[in-house]
């Protein structure tokens, strides 16, 4: 039984990490009042830019390459999210429409650039991915050491620490209060001297940075290359995690961990005695069915931030 946990827990954290980063970004954007369907596209940009950077600079930068690649992806995510921000906040574009356009634009741009740089539609595998590590000392703790500190990706730890940080910022700092205020009632926030446009810009930029990191973490740990199908729905799963987690950073983290757990079940499942006779298809659909049941059963009504999706026009009532 313990052996199963030893394999499932690291797998769960491995699959969940990219989703956690991206979902946290989604929370910040939506809390500030801007729906971001474009998370998928921002992840594509993150994956594309990190893989390209990694391939081009691996020789020069050595083992530091994947980490710098993630930073590059973060910047690329920010730049790309600015398109969403300008269109939805300044030009008052429909947020869903713009998000859909961002997804198409990112994929088209990514593959177009790959063809320009490498002359083909699919990159080679990166030579400097992020490897698993054992955490010194902690891995020697009986039972827990093997569960949580053996063969782990550092990115998974960062994702979890960041979730708590994101929660703290959103609920315990003036900046977080402003983000929530402009997402809930922008006009009231405006009357109180909060700069609605600036705050919303920041919300979208944070989502771009985090989704870029999410895409990069996916590319550096899971796919290790970039093609048209590298990011196939992870961004939409992150949106699901945002809603599942009721627009709360810790809730989103929990939802992402749940998705990661369900995904690891379908990978590890065949080696678990209880599950080995279950047809594969049940394990494959389990995460999605369980999510629907969880939403219908005990999570219940999920209510979006009140002004989410509504452009703010200064002076209008």
């Amino acid at each position, binding site marked *: 039984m313990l052996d199963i946990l030893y394999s499932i827990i690291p797998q769960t954290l491995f699959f969940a990490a990219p989703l956690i980063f991206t979902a946290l970004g989604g929370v910040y954007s939506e809390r500030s009042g801007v729906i971001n369907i474009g998370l998928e596209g921002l992840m594509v940009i993150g994956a594309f830019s990190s893989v390209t950077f990694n391939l081009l600079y691996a020789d020069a930068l050595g083992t530091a390459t994947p980490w710098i690649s993630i930073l590059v992806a973060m910047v690329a995510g920010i730049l790309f999210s600015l*398109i969403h921000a300008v*269109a939805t906040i300044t*030009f*008052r*574009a*429909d947020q*869903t*429409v*713009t998000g*859909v*356009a*961002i*997804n*198409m*634009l990112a*994929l*088209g*741009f990514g*593959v*177009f650039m790959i*063809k*320009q740089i490498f002359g083909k539609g699919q990159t080679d595998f990166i030579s400097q991915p992020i490897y698993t590590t054992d955490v010194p000392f902690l891995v020697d703790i009986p039972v827990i050491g093997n569960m949580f500190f053996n063969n782990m990706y550092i990115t998974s730890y960062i994702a979890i620490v960041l979730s708590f940080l994101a929660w703290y910022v959103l609920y315990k700092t003036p900046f977080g209060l402003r983000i929530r205020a402009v997402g809930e009632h922008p006009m009231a926030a405006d009357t109180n001297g909060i700069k609605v446009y600036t705050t919303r810009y920041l919300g979208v930029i944070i989502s771009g940075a985090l989704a870029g990191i999410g895409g990069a973490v996916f590319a550096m740990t899971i796919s290790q290359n970039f093609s048209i*199908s590298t990011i*196939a*729905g992870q961004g*939409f*799963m992150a*949106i*699901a995690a945002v*809603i*599942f987690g009721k627009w709360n950073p810790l809730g989103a983290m929990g939802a992402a961990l749940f998705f990661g757990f369900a995904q690891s079940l379908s990978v590890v499942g065949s080696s678990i005695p209880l599950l080995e006779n279950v*047809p*594969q*298809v049940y394990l*494959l*659909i389990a*995460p*999605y*069915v369980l*999510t*629907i049941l969880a*939403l*219908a059963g005990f*999570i*219940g*009504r*999920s209510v*979006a931030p009140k002004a989410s999706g509504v452009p703010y026009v200064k002076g209008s009532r």
Partner: protein
Amino acid sequence: MFSSTKFNFIIPIISVILGLVAGAIIMLIFGYNPVLGYQALWNGVFDSPFFMSETVNRITPYILTGLAIAFAFRTGLFNIGAEGQVLVGWVAAVWVGTAIDAPAFIHLPLALLAAAAAGAFWAFIPGILKAKLGVHEVIVSIMMNYIALHITNYLIRSVLTDNQETTEPVKQTASLTNDFLIGLTGSRLHLGFIVALLMVLIMWVILERTKLGYELKAVGYNQHASNYAGMKVERNIVISMLISGLFAGLAGAMQGLGSFGNAFTNTAFSNLGFDGIAVALLGGNNPFGVVLSASLFGFLKVGSLNMSTAGVPNEIIEIVIALIILFVASGFIIRWALLQLKKGEKK
């Protein structure tokens, strides 16, 4: 001054032009010849009857997924699950098309009906959960997409075939293809476009000429007011999702009974449903607008495949389409610019 209906036409047209210009600029930046690029795009569609028919075959499912998403949007629902509804419709149509023996006038309608029912059922689940429990339809639809992907793969491998990745072709009695059209064009041009155009009319009639349509739109504008006016909001949400799913399911039938004539396992989504979101939005969520935007999409997608003859990667068209949508979405700024121009003329 422009009236607002005029703007509804002008903004998409300006956006398409701006998108194509932006595409030309990108081609220039990367050292391609935009004139040759766009010429190849045009020739990729209009050079031969074969590719013209391929384009029609491409437009047909786009019309249907566009309608599916537009219809849900009009009731204030976001059916991001069209992708999954297309898949289940596709497999349901092929299942009926391969498993049953019947004369064509029964077999074909039955296969189409199966696809519509499967799509409608797939949309019913997010609909009923939204109506009864207030669960967000977007997240349930996304989950239903993945469930559809895995279940259809399973059905194709284990039920429709014996561990094969591709099913038998559908029987001629259930096929949308037609010997006359095939002889005329040498392509798989099929009669699905008639089904699609019929659905365009049906959507228009429902929305503009029936009490149901009026209620659906009212719920889309304001749920609370509709409820106060005595409309059954919950029932209308479910009905809207059912009709939306029906359209998407039929889009799957177009592929299964027409363009491909079989079903096959997928590792990723076909993107028909996701592209349908863009089709609906560009078409202003209006059934006739959807026909126009689906035609533009089909034209660009098929034509782009020929752009490699001019050495241009066909992803440029993905970028152009995305930019067009961005420009349409930012219609406010185009409108503002047009009004400034008008003012300038008066002085």
